């Protein structure tokens, strides 16, 4: 480690709260000294500040009114001074600062909406609350997103401000305003550092390119679904270029100068960051996969990262002609604490690791001051860490198998104990005896169980507390079975069920199961059901079983022999058949 990087001692420590998209390294004064330009969001109570560091010293602060969503630096002219502009994106505007002084402001024009249903509503409505109601209805049909910004704003307002707002905007045109989510620079016609750049602007509905010399939008426009989260561009505007766009819903588009619709990949998880190279791009998703695709969106490789990725950055070391991907991961230790780990990938292999005490949220690599290869990292608690790559540093590029200390984990098998041996010997000597003993015990147990069962059955039979009888009524083929129950005991009986079991081949029973109400002592109640004969013949299976149960226990089981029904004779039977208790 120490042979690769020089740690910069930062005393007193610098604290910054920022995001990856709000940092850049640029020579903002044209004095051949790269400054660290960063937006400090502070603790959230104060307004954000654009800070410029020369070395470790903060030289300039620009106070901003609102939170910027991105910053970048662009060269706007070919003058010999080589002073770039810092472009700060706030909502739908881009502020250009040159030499830390305001230079220009560019706004994305709102589009005016005419002749829609929404416009009619605004024109027709006299009353603010009436309008609000109708707008809400409209919003639920076409969707809030598709309303004009004027209406959207109104729907979000507090009630006390409504009238004021209505009076202010009722005479104006409805507008749809798009905000800028992302910007990146694209060189116009010279690829060197000082070459004039265009600014690729991603708004909520499209990608457009701004000429920074005249501050006019160039004709190339690209449409896509979803809002842009990251964007990266390579090439020259005048010659040919590629723009890689990653949306917040996990889609990746590649637009090139000639084609209007890009190839597309869709990732399964949200994208953490993307890196665009000449022939491929690398994308990192929150499920911890680093994926590499060609520009035609063919997957080349993917690697599983050791932890949650926080940010990735491209690292090109010119002296070694080495292009690496720097990934900062949040690794959970065995003791549950999260630690940072910065990995450098060359292709799909890790060639270098830097462990960090805290997870690194923001990371940037580039020329800092006079130093060619500097790595600036900001951890979760806002501490800035700077490492400089030694000129003598080398990276071991040969892929070697990751020998993970050759885990010669011994199988934890218990040693034979004396007790075990004793038992084994005893078993060998007395196996017959043991077997006989076991069998005998088993048989005794079986006998005990059988006796118990027999006893319980006997008890049930002797304690007869229910008197039953059955009647078969009717002439056929439709009969009625009436089943009478009488409680002979002293306590009322509850939860008695009566079920009729029958052979569906011969009979059909209307309700084969009935639940009895409470049976009070010394009273007789009955349940009845209709039986229909279906076919003739087969005297044995003709019987219908009547089962009386209480909970899970069968109390009685009776058999009713059904008469063989004959259409010709129509001899009607009405008999009480033999009832056998069980």
């Amino acid at each position, binding site marked *: 480690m120490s042979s690769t990087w020089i740690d910069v001692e930062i005393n007193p420590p610098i604290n910054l709260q920022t995001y990856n*998209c709000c940092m850049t390294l640029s020579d903002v004064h044209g004095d051949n000294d790269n400054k660290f330009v960063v937006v400090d969001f502070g603790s959230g109570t104060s307004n954000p500040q654009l800070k410029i560091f020369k070395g470790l010293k903060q030289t300039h602060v620009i*106070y901003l*009114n609102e*939170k910027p*969503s991105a910053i970048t630096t662009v060269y706007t002219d070919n003058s010999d001074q080589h002073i770039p502009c810092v472009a*700060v994106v*706030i*909502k*739908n*505007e881009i*502020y250009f*600062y040159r030499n830390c002084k*305001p230079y*220009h*402001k560019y*706004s994305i024009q*709102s589009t005016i909406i005419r002749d829609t249903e929404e416009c009619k509503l605004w024109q027709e409505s006299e009353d603010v609350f009436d309008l609000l109601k109708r707008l809400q209805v409209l919003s639920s049909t*076409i*969707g*809030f*997103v*598709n309303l004009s*910004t*004027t209406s*959207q*704003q109104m*729907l*979000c307002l507090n009630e006390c401000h409504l009238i004021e707002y209505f009076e202010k905007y009722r005479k*104006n045109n409805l507008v749809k305003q798009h*905000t800028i*989510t992302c910007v990146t620079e694209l060189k116009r016609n010279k690829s060197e550092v000082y070459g004039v750049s265009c600014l690729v602007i991603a708004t909520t509905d499209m990608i457009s390119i701004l000429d920074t010399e005249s501050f006019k939008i160039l004709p190339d426009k690209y449409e896509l*679904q*979803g*809002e842009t*989260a990251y964007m990266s561009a390579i090439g020259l505007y005048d010659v040919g270029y590629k723009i890689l766009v990653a949306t*917040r*819903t996990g889609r990746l588009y590649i637009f090139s100068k000639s084609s209007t619709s890009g190839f597309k*990949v*869709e990732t399964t998880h*949200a994208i*953490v960051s993307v890196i665009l190279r000449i022939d491929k791009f690398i994308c990192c998703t*929150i499920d911890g996969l680093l994926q590499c695709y060609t520009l035609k969106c*063919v*997957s080349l490789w993917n*690697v599983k990262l050791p932890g*949650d990725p*926080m*940010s990735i950055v491209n690292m090109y070391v010119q002296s070694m002609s080495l292009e690496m991907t720097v990934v900062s991961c949040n690794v959970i230790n065995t003791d549950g604490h999260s630690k940072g780990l910065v990995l450098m990938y060359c292709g799909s292999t890790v060639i270098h690791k830097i462990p960090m005490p805290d997870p690194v949220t923001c990371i940037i690599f580039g020329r800092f001051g006079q130093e060619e290869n500097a790595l600036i990292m900001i951890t979760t608690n806002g501490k800035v860490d700077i490492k400089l790559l030694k000129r003598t540093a080398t990276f071991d590029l040969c892929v070697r*198998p990751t020998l*993970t200390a050759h*885990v*010669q984990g011994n*199988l934890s098998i218990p040693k034979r104990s004396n007790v*075990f041996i004793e038992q*084994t010997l005893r*078993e060998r000597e007395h*196996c*017959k005896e043991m*077997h006989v003993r*076991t069998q005998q015990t088993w048989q005794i147990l079986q006998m005990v169980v059988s006796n118990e069962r027999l006893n319980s059955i006997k008890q049930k039979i002797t304690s007869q507390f229910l008197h039953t009888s059955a009647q078969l009524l009717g002439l056929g083929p439709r009969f009625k079975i009436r089943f009478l129950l009488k409680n002979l005991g002293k306590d009322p009986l509850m939860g008695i069920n009566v079920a009729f079991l029958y052979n569906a081949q011969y009979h059909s029973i209307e309700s084969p199961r009935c639940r009895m109400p409470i049976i009070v002592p010394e009273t007789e109640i009955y349940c009845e059901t209709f039986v229909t004969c279906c076919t003739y013949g087969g005297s044995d299976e003709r019987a219908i079983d009547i089962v009386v149960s209480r909970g899970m226990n069968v109390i009685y089981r009776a058999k009713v022999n059904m008469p063989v029904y004959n259409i010709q004779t129509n001899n009607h039977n009405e008999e009480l058949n033999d009832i056998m208790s069980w």
Partner: protein
Amino acid sequence: MDNGLVSYKITEPMMQVFNVQEKSDWIIYNRYIQRDLELCKLLIDQDLRNTKDNNEFAFYILGLIYREEGKIKNSYWCFDRYYALNPLCVEGVKQIARSCLLLGRNDEARKMYLEAEKMSREPDTKVYYNLGLCYLNLGELDKSKEYFHRTIQLSRNQDAYEKLASIFAIENNFKNATSILISASKLFPFSTNISVDLGLLYMKQRDYDQAFNVLGNTLCQDPENPKALLTLAAEMQRNFGYDEALAKYTKAVTDLSECSETWNNIGMCFFGKHKYVAAISCLKRAIYLHPFNWIALYNLGLVHIYTRQYVSAFVFLSTSAKLNPNHAGTFMLIGLALNHMSDTRNAEKAYRKSIELNSDNPEALINLTILEINQGKIKEAEKNFHAFQEACLSCGSIDKEIIELGKQVSDAINGQPQSFDENEDEKLESDEPCYAEVE
């Protein structure tokens, strides 16, 4: 005031700057991808209050967070809100469908995905892939295959290849499954999942050389891939390479220390090396981890017969027989154990049961013959001996010991009836290395 800019007045009076939406969307997104979920929820809550629940992106991220937390119903609701706020966006429909799929409502999910397919202007691989999943879950394999095919045609989706191969494997169409996996492994040479699946598929088709090849390559890439380790080890064990198999199991067991099958196989490795005590402790661990593993119980019974602990052997074997009453070998061993404990009546029953389950069972037949000779039932013994001879002819590989025993028995039947005490030491060495197909 104006961020330091005083000049450049807005010329048109109606060009007002609204700060309604998009104000904190990118911050929410940044916090989300940096996994600061608590803060993210706080931001979303604040934002939704400010906009009276009118920020669709906040709902989207909230839905994703809930999904990660396993609150699928909440996430479903969030995506529903997202869709209501932006009904022209396909993403909402897709996410709702995904929630349905996760909730197991495959039919509903299928309907939603079909809706999404209609809505999207260009073919969407994610929709196709998920439709394939829906149809697979609904059991409509042909439709499912069609959608996975479409997914593959549109993009190289590794999961789609795997699913397609598994469908072919379900349909017993191993040829197609193999060819799918081969083409996938060419596209994704670094994916160990695909190569392991391919290896297992070769294994199922009994193409052991290819399987060894593929799985060996997998292990070169990922030396601790448990599936590949287990499969290779089981195969080595089948070929009596006990030490090599044990080395592989030792590696795998760090990951799979609670896998009953692994411990069963380790136990049988030790058995093969005649280390009975180690075998017993491993098998007992396998049974502790999975008390209904009848194979481990059977093996434990076998080892106990070898250590001449017939009572224990009988106990384990009868448990195994209760769990799987259709395995002929178990009853054969029960008979053997009973015979050793002089319970000839029950031993005979057990042998007969074994023969009933599998009539081509030379081990059980010869044992029954010996038993009958010892009891003096020469006629029945002769009958069984003929059956044994036939079984020997029909069976492929037979232990030399059994053939030797057969010779002795035939001498005994033909010559003078002599008692057979010495050759009752006949055992069947049939360890059952069952490798665990994880997942």
